[in-house]
């Protein structure tokens, strides 16, 4: 997983600086960067890792599911940010980042497949998206409001996607978007005891999130 790998790599580098002979663990050098507060992400990671052996909580108490959905969204952002930077990898199902992305969804999920098709088309057009600044990822998705239970294995949620990116076409910067706010909804499902993303929806004509300070947004 991308975030897990990023955290692991960070820890490996720290250990390596202390003791070169102790370095071990994930040797995949392609680790991406997780957006947002890495410490927070790591905490969620720890929380979810320790419960991985047993079923994740049902939506009977939606608040208990919230950290799992937040973790899914953080991993979604991490994967998306890597893929849009080099969308040519979207067509390669064996690419670790693509595997990370697909791991967020149930097998055969239409949203995941459609997303990859879209990025493949972007690659064919020579378009990539780079972060507009060092401190913000291209795509950051946060929950808006509490989860709403559909049944014990399904939740709906409000979400706000914040996007800051530079459009690079055939190697040339062509356009820049700074803090574009897209409100919408999402759905997560619990399959075989694991919470997975089902879809993220951006309604037509929607722009601006209350939690982010309106259209212009606050920083």
């Amino acid at each position, binding site marked *: 997983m991308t975030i897990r790998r990023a955290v692991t790599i960070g820890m490996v580098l720290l250990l390596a600086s202390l003791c070169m002979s102790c370095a071990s663990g994930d040797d995949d050098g392609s680790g991406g960067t997780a957006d947002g507060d890495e410490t927070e992400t790591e905490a969620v990671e720890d929380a979810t890792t320790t419960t991985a052996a047993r079923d994740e909580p049902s939506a009977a108490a939606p608040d208990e599911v919230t950290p799992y959905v937040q973790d899914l969204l953080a991993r979604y952002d991490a994967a998306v940010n890597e893929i849009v930077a080099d969308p040519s990898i979207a067509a390669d199902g064996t690419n670790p980042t693509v595997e990370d992305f697909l791991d967020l969804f149930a097998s055969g999920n239409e949203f995941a497949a459609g997303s990859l098709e879209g990025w493949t088309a972007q690659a064919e057009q020579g378009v990539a998206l780079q972060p507009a600044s060092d401190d913000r990822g291209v795509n950051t998705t946060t929950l808006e409001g509490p989860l709403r239970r559909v*049944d014990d294995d399904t939740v709906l949620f409000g979400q706000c996607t914040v996007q800051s990116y530079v459009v690079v076409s055939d190697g040339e910067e062509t356009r820049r*978007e700074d803090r574009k706010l897209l409100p919408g909804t999402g759905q997560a499902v619990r399959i075989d005891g694991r919470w997975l993303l089902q879809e993220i929806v*951006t309604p037509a004509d929607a722009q601006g999130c209350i939690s982010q300070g309106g259209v212009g947004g606050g920083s």
Partner: protein
Amino acid sequence: MTTGMRVGTRTGTMLTARTKVTRAAVLAGLLLGAAAVPVSFPAAPAAAQAGCDNEVNPQTCHAGAGTPGRTVDLSAEVGPHVSGGEKECISGNPGGHWVDVGPPFASALDFDPGPPPEPGAHYWVFLCPNHINGILNPVNWEGGGWGIAPPEEPPAPEDVLPPLWDEVQARLHAPELALDPPAGEHAVVKVPTFVGILNPQVATRYTATAANSAGSVTVWIDVIPTTTLHPGEPDADGVRCDEDGHAFDDDGPKPEVQAEADSSCTHAYDHVSEAGWEGDVTITWAVTWGSDMGPGGALDAAPSVQPFTRIVDEYSAVVTDFD
């Protein structure tokens, strides 16, 4: 002493606010005489938005079981409940009010308001008391314009959203169920039961436009229902339902065949219950809103639930005529 500064209103129109103690004090003494006649002021520019604009992952624009395919315009219902926004002092201080300064006094302004655009028009300035702008000023001018009556403010999204949301919530109904076997009759273990929904509710975009002489705003609320059958017996998973559920076709094949062809809103009970299992059909609403002036977000709607009771027998009754 005069200080000019540029301020923005929510319409995006730029007005010149001026701080002028002596002249404003004189103007503040003038009495208002407003007539209910339309005035001509710049309309609010509509934000340029069209379609879904997620360039990072366009798939989110197509996702959804539930992207609304139906639009319902509730402007007629909502419009009467929306008044134009009220102009407020930039400082947030109460007591701001319009003052009629002309034409006789318009020439006393320290800027040229130009000629009246129509006969009988007056020049209005908005006075804000106790405005703090680095120093405490008795009054501050915050905008002005020609008109027969004080300028209106265009309606804001937050003026339209509450009455629109009230109208929308009144349209979110609990499902009306058609059970098969019918309510009161006994189902049989392992034989599929069916739940039809008589008042199907589909994903819908509700819109309302409110307008006055200063501009207009359109607000929409997208409602995406997810319908689930909860059979009520222990360990039974929820079953997804189409918006109209799944009515049993009396002229069709056996229940097992119909359920296998379309499992929507069907359930075969595993356990007997003489008292009946307490099930329900629940519609959960995913609701988002937006406007052509920008702000938007998610709204919280309580699920709509219709309970039912299913009596389940081990065997179907066989009527035998002994005569």
